[in-house]
Every structure is written in C-alpha cells, then in structure tokens.
C-alpha cells in the first residue's frame, strides 16, 4: 500500500515539472528578507476584519487520507456495530471497493485530506474551493440560502458557511451515503452532518477541525483536526483521473 502511494506522489511530482505557472509569484504574500513567502507572518484579514482563508493549501502528507481517525485510538471511533463490521471488511479487502479507485470523486470530508493542492477563493455570497485533484470545485454558500427542497444527495453535498469569530464554519448535509472518508474506509451515510472549522493561525498554516455527526454509522459525534499548509508562488495543475486510471485493473483486494 505504501509503495502504491509513493508511486502516486511521484507521478504527481513528475507531472509538476512540465506544468505552467507553477512558479508564479503570489502577489499578496508577505516576504522574509530572502524573498521567500513568510509562512509565520500573521494571518491576513479581509476588509471586513475577518481572517482571510483564501490561498492554495495542501495537506501535510498522507496521514489523514489513509485514516481520518489517525490521531484517535481505535476504540475511540464510536462505530455503530454494522459500521464497525463494514470498516473491518474494507480493511480486510485492502480497500478494493473504494470509489476513488474508479475515479469517482472524493466526498466531504475526505476532500480535505487528498494530497494535492486546493485553492480557496472568496466571493460575495460564497466561498469556493477548487481542487487540483479531479479539477473539481465545491461551493460553500454564505448568503444565507437553505438547501433546495429537491436537492439530490451528492458526493459534496450542500454546504453553507458562516464566521464564528476567526473560524470559518462550514456545515454540510445532503451527502450521498457512498462516501469513504479515507482509504481505510470509514463510512459515512446519507444521514451525515459534517462540520468543518477552518482556522488560519498565521500566513502559512491552518487547522481544519472536522466533526462527524452521523447517527446511522456512529453512536455519537466525533471530532478530528487536520492541518494543511499554504503553498505560495504557484498555481493549480489540471488533473484528470480517467485520463490515466491504471489502478482499477490492478486492485488486488481479497
């Protein structure tokens, strides 16, 4: 498994070498004396005084993509019995049925941990996240709208955002029940309510505190924290899963 991941990371880096605008300077970045972006400079703020969470971010390694519960003890994940069985089976079959293997999208909240950059942009009425992986976008509405009555459950669900002090808090429902939260296979049902608190500490660092409230799969809500870092002086690449999906036919799950 580790070897496979190394290969994926290698492929990503190999592709980067040819890409364009990868070294394009970020205009707004605070600079230290050597001209590099100063990652420990204070977090920027928007005109209205809120912390500005925009920028290109990248998870720190594979840890939370492999297991969203990486920081918890195994017994601390409050599985419902059937979910515990399903998780065990997914581990035993080496993640054979992970929708990602078929180039289906990562759902919420796995997206926060996928090890390629994502770009957060702020517009009137919405926060937008552009994911390099799959060249897919996610809209988080901040204009007070409610989920449409005819909303069809989906991989990214329906997300609204609001500010709570310096935290940008995103609530997501309307998920499709097919989501694996990580490659280990922590399940998430259509009853899930996911809360993400984006908290930018300084220019280069952010926490995303994720609370999983899914009474069908878990006996109580549980919370983990991921910690992506900022990438300055670069842009997203285009990444198309189906262009080069050689995984599917090599999956060896038992």
């Amino acid at each position: 498994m580790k070897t496979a991941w190394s290969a994926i990371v290698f492929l990503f880096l190999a592709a980067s070498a040819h890409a364009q605008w990868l070294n394009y300077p970020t205009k707004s970045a605070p600079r230290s004396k050597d001209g590099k972006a100063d990652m420990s400079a204070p977090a920027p703020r928007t005109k209205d005084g809120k912390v500005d969470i925009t920028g290109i971010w990248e998870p720190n390694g594979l840890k939370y993509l492999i297991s969203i519960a990486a920081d918890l003890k195994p017994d601390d994940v409050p599985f419902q019995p059937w979910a515990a069985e399903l998780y065990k089976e997914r581990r035993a079959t080496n993640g054979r049925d992970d929708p990602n293997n078929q180039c289906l999208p990562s759902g919420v909240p796995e997206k926060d941990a996928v090890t390629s950059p994502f770009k957060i942009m702020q517009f009137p009425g919405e926060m937008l996240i552009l994911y390099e992986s799959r060249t897919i976008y996610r809209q988080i509405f901040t204009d007070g709208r409610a989920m449409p009555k005819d909303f069809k459950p989906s991989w990214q669900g329906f997300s609204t955002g609001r500010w709570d002090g310096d935290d940008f808090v995103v609530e997501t429902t309307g998920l499709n029940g097919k989501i694996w939260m990580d490659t280990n296979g922590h399940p998430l049902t259509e009853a899930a309510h996911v809360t993400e608190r984006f908290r930018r500490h300084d220019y280069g660092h952010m926490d995303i505190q994720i609370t999983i409230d899914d009474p069908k799969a878990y006996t109580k809500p549980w919370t983990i924290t991921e910690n992506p870092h900022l990438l300055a002086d670069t842009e997203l690449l285009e990444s198309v899963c189906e262009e080069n999906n050689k995984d599917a036919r090599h999956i060896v799950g038992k």
Partner: protein
Amino acid sequence: MKTGFFRFLAGCAVLASPLAMWGQGRADLTGVWSPDEVLSIAPRANALLINRNAAEVKGDPDANCTLSGIPRIELGPKPFKILQSADEVVILYQNYTAFRQVFTDGRALPADPQPSWLGYSVGKWDGDTLVVDTVGFNDLTWLDNAGTPHSEALHVTERFHRRDKERLDIQITIEDPKTFSKPFTVTEHARLLPAGELTEMICLENRK
C-alpha cells in the same frame, strides 16, 4: 468575423490592440448562465477543414469521462457559472463539475505549455467585454458534439459580452492552422438563470 481574422493575423495582437480600452470598464459577468441551444460549430468549421485527422480520436472522447475541452464544455445544454475576483475570472461548469481559471492579472500565456484538456487561459477587458485567450490544449477533445477535430495548435479566443442583465453573448474564434484553412467565429447566446444554481454532475455516474 473580420475583426477576429485580423486579430489572429497578428497572433496575440488582441493583447496589444491600440483600439482596446483595457481596464476602462469591468462589466459584471457573475451569474449562472444557460446556453440557448446546443451550439454546433461544424457548419462553419467543415468548409475550412484541411486536416480531418487532426485529432486522432476514435469515438466520442466524452464517452470516456476524461474532460471536455474548450469550447465544447460550454456549448450547452448544461449551465455554467461565472465568478469574478480582482485577479481572475472563474468559470464553473455543471459538466464534469469542472472549473476553469481565467487569469486577468496581466500574466502572459505560457510559452511552451504542457498540453491539457482545458488549456491555459488569460483574460483582458476590452471595454465591457472580457476577452479570453486560451492555448495549450491536447488534441484529444472534440470542439463540439458533432466531432469537429482540432490539433494541439488550437488557439481559442472568447469574447464574453453581457448584452443586458439577462443575456450573455460569447463570440468564440477558433484558430488552428493545422486543422482549418483560416480562423472562424461562432457566437453562443446564453440566458441568466436568476435563481439558478449548478448541481453536481459526475460523468462516470451517468456513463451509459
């Protein structure tokens, strides 16, 4: 048509035209837009086709769920949404739930781009018209549903003009000297969906 032709004669002259009033006006293109009809560019393209095999494509590339290219992804019938920031215009396509970044911060197009599905786009304001230049395509996509081919030499220029509150015109100029004897232009018309929003659309889930 004539304007488009002369623009292309000078290569990227659209970026340097003395007639342009860059930055004088910035129309607000923001909104969810729905194409009036599924636009086919074949009627214009076929007469100018000099290399039918420019794209060595067997069957419809969209059937593989890779990614449509420009302009096919925006030719309808699915809506798209435009968002604008100070430095870029972002186009969200319902097709593929794919996004496209159009940089308006003055950067140049890449000189030797790695071929890609949606290419590399920069935009400039010509009065209240957003002029988007895109290069760096692979040759794996069709230009429209009819299967009009293109080569990696494709250069697409799109002029986004909001005629009024509810109407958006996109004048699309196709230049690909390896495929067509001369550049040509088609115009797409789209209507604002005032209360509309895009829905998630995953190609693989709809593949027949």
